[in-house]
């Protein structure tokens, strides 16, 4: 039998112990002098570096400017994935020939890791904005397409038949029957997409970019400044959580409105 829940006191005690163990081991390892502090900084050093980065420019920009340029790329790539993915998925769900034509292509492309597009991104766009956007697109596109397609395929046939009896053409069936019915599934897909897109962006910026958090980390790496690299990791994690939380809010709001 799974044990009953712990009492709040014990739970928080163990939680605190877990955190203390993590930060304790880290601090002791950093202070023990096995390696230099630049190589393994203490948690405190990382925090100070994070503060410093947000006032003092590093590789041309302060932290929030790097974040802003990352977010801009992310927004563009994500938007593009949504604008292409949803209509294409509706077409695939409605017209069988589109499905048969696109499915094999999509299945092949899906198995290519988004990051493997980096060489083509560099070849086509140089270090411009197009490269990272392409890679985010490749990361964010599959979940949007798959979820929209599944949602549209699971529409109750009665609704489609009713709409057609009432004289709705293909376009109106897709936009007024399939699309609304697929919304919960689409929103779930968007959350996965945003997560994958954000991850791909980080990867892209490590290789093809001249600003952004990923670029900041690469430069930190080149300068063997572990604290800078870790500050980048913290910033990336925090923004990732923020994106996910806001999309979850949106998802809950939509579900509440639909009475689900």
């Amino acid at each position, binding site marked *: *039998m*799974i*044990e*009953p*829940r*712990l009492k709040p006191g*014990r*739970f928080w005690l*163990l*939680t605190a*112990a*877990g*955190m203390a*163990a*993590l930060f304790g081991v880290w601090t002791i390892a950093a202070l023990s002098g096995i390696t230099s502090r630049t*190589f393994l900084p203490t948690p405190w050093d990382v925090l100070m570096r994070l503060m410093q980065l947000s006032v003092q420019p590093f590789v041309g920009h302060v932290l929030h400017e790097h974040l802003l340029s990352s977010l801009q790329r992310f927004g563009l790539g994500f938007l593009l994935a949504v604008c292409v993915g949803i209509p294409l998925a509706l077409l695939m769900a409605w017209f*069988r020939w589109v499905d*048969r*034509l696109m*499915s*094999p*292509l999509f299945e*092949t492309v899906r*198995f*290519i*890791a*988004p*990051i*493997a*597009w*980096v*060489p*083509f991104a*560099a*070849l*086509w766009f140089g270090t411009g904005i197009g490269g990272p956007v392409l890679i985010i697109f490749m990361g964010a596109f599959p979940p949007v397409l798959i979820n929209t397609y599944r949602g549209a395929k699971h529409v109750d046939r009665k609704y489609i038949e009713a709409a057609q009896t009432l004289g709705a053409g293909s376009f109106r069936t897709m936009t007024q029957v399939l699309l609304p019915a697929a919304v919960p599934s689409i929103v779930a897909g968007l959350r996965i997409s945003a997560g994958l897109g*954000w*991850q*791909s962006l*980080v*990867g892209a910026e*490590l*290789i093809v970019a001249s600003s952004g958090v*990923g670029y900041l*980390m*690469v430069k*930190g*790496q080149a300068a*063997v400044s*572990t604290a800078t*690299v*870790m500050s*980048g*990791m*913290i910033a*990336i*994690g*925090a923004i*990732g959580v923020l994106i*996910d939380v806001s999309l979850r809010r949106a998802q809950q709001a939509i579900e509440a409105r639909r009475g689900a």
Partner: protein
Amino acid sequence: MRVTTGSRNVFNTLGTVTAAIIVLLLVWHAATAGTGLVSPARFPAPLEVASALEQIAVEGYSNGRWHEHVLRSVLLVTMGFIFSSSIGVVLGLAMGASRKIEAFVNPIFLLLRPIPPLAWIPLAIVWLGLGDAAKIMVIFVAAFVPSVINSYTGVRQIEKPIFEAAAMLDVSGWRYWREVLIPGAMPSIFTGLRLSLQAAWTTLVAAELIGAIAGLGQILNQAAQDIFPAMIMVGMLSVALCGWLMTLALGWIEARATPWRAR
């Protein structure tokens, strides 16, 4: 009308898939080599890709022949994945089974989980350089989190009557793990392993792209520097093929590990 019927449908699908691939190849050929609509400096023609594949398979490219690059990447991923996910699954099961372990470990996870695996690459390079050690570190991180989380939720999703039956039959100790927890969590464990494998593979390719001596990511990196689009394509298709084959292999193992599940 959309009617799906047993075996005829399989041949039907197979036929259309083949047709779609042929159409795709023809369109690709026509757009690149045929009409020159897409410049060969931007996107390679199918025949160029074939000759690039021949070049790398016979003469070698970027410090090795094709099978050497593939073997290196696949071996690294397989080793890192097995190492990481076996620790991850055990930890996840322990977290699922014990509230105390859960309370102790979970906050550490909540902190580390939002950091994407790719973001560990610069840290791995600072600490361990460009060799295999850094690759194993990033594969470990990438594969660890999904296997822990899914094993943990797997245990928590086991239905109550199963625990009650186990308690009634006085199953405990090693038998409790082997006959209750592990089989009960198995479907979820495999979901986690699949995610782990994908994350490990993507992360390795990215790490090799940033710096490596050999491997599929290194082919991509070298081809990008040489501005050799056909070889880039060969690298990408190889990444996709290996990822697909490894996922298939894992599915095969899953089918054998959970024979009671109807397929």
